[in-house]
């Protein structure tokens, strides 16, 4: 490429790029804080659900409007889940008085229900256990592997989705401090 061709080419590309950037807010307006769309992904509204507890109470996610909620999918055969849940309990004890709730959803359709209930009670967890008996919620929440942690802020917006062992006591503490910090 000769010097002149290169100069003309590069200046053209730079000017067209500049026009493209200028036009972007008009042609492709960004949708910030997508409050209308429900999806299991950071930034979207958490889809609502209704499930039963082991003692046959019915609970919905929408019951916890205005509170931060951790939706935690687990199974009794899952060692990572059982390693994580005591950590969740410890955070729960500190933050429950400020309105934090944990919904520990047992994937009962692929677990032995009695094992799950025995485990949960023997550990003395004080957060809420729910049963996904038919697997419909797991499908709706695109469960690919347990544990799956979905942290929801008081506005019902998903703050983070973590598959596997990434959910830990320290991470949850940091996130909750941010959520409550913003409110205070």
């Amino acid at each position, binding site marked *: 490429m000769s*010097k002149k061709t*290169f*100069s003309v080419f*590069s200046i053209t*590309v*730079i000017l067209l*790029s*500049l026009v*493209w*950037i200028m036009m*972007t*807010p008009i*042609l*492709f307006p*960004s*949708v*910030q804080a*997508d409050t209308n*769309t*429900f*999806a299991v*992904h*950071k*930034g*979207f509204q958490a889809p609502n659900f209704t499930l039963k507890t082991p003692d046959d109470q019915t609970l919905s996610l929408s019951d916890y409007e205005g509170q931060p909620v951790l939706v935690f999918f687990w199974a009794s055969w899952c060692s990572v889940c059982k390693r994580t849940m005591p*950590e969740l309990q*410890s*955070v729960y004890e500190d933050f429950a008085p400020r309105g934090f709730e944990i919904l520990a959803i047992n994937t009962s359709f692929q677990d032995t229900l009695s094992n799950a209930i025995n485990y949960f009670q023997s550990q003395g967890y004080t957060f809420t256990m729910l049963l996904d008996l038919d697997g419909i919620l797991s499908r709706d929440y*695109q469960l*690919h*592997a347990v544990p799956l942690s979905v942290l929801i802020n008081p506005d019902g917006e998903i703050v*983070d989705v*973590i*598959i*596997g*062992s*990434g*959910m*830990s*006591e*320290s*991470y949850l*503490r*940091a996130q909750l*401090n*941010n959520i409550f910090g913003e409110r205070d």
Partner: protein
Amino acid sequence: MFPIINIGPFAIQTSGFILIAALFMGIWIMGYFSKNLGTNGEVIENSILLGLIVGLISARAGFILQNPTALAGNPFAVFSLTPSMLNASFGIFVGVVTAFIFGQKKHLPLWPTLDTLTPLLILVFAGIHLSNFANGNGYGLPTDLPWGIQLWNETRHPVNLYVLVLISAYFIRTALHTKIFKNTGFIRSGTLFSLTLGVIGFITLISRSFVEEKVLIGSFDSWQLMGFALLVFGMAMIYHKGYKNQKHISVFISLGSNQDAEKNLGKAIDQIKASFKIRKSSNVYKTKDVISEDALSTFFNQVIEIDTDLSYIDLRTKLKAIERGFGRQQGNKKSVPLDLDILTYDNDVFYFHGKQIPDPNLIQYKYIVVPLGEIAPDFRHPASGVGVEDIIAQLSDKNAIQKLKEVENGFTT
């Protein structure tokens, strides 16, 4: 969307797997490229490794500094293997700076090293977008176009695929242009890297328009502005490297002769002096013929540093003309009235018409390195950054070399 790959009982996080695979493949291609360019692959790999380790530690430290309460329950969590507890941008920044400082300390030459890193840069960029595609990050705006994909409750622009198509096309173009990573395909070092930065910037600024969640500065997307800055920087560097007339370029030339050598070398120096400013010129050295290994043939060699404004191509033509004036026949290696070889041209690393610069003989033969070390003891190899003393220490050439002193009408030992 495929965030998890199930292999038997194991569930692997796709995004992490893709990033690691891209990194490994990039480093592997980079190693091959480095060998062909003559750059210091080992030191480059070490600096990348160091950058990665320090980057990871800093990413964790950054997260803890931002969220000091994270450790309230359990201080040992600072070592936990949770990828969510990382401050990525801080980690990348510290990692890159560390790798850069390490490279400087090891005398890695900037532009040839950056050229070597180009395949890694392309693959990591592609890997980031493929892993975003896998876990549905950086999703596009809703669209009615027939190629829209179903994601997060909408039919959306497959933005990450747009990027992957464009960067794959550029990767293939680069592979062809470099003869499958044999050379950079450009004369000036740094052109390939600058071009790649420009292309990555361009792809980013085009594709970000279709992303739904923008990071706005005023009414503009900050990634788009960053892409634009990269594009302008890349173009400016290419112009600076490739099109600006250079002045006072330092060129090292090796002179050799085995026919009437004493007279020819002296005459050659006179002719070069007529066209160029000679900055430095070494003593004459006597060696056995290392190329044809003819026991009876003895070569006289000398290295000079000249100052020129000529481009490499013009300089080479000029030197060839001088060679021919001495009756040099191309291809005749036995009888060499005068041989003029360009050893280095500025600090550039390139391949042109079957000739590699810096000359590969520069790290092989005493008859070149010893006189070079005499006139430029601080010389460093433009590609690898290895100092001339270390080059001499690593030579496998065991032939004797003898310095000659010039006396009137000839040389004496």
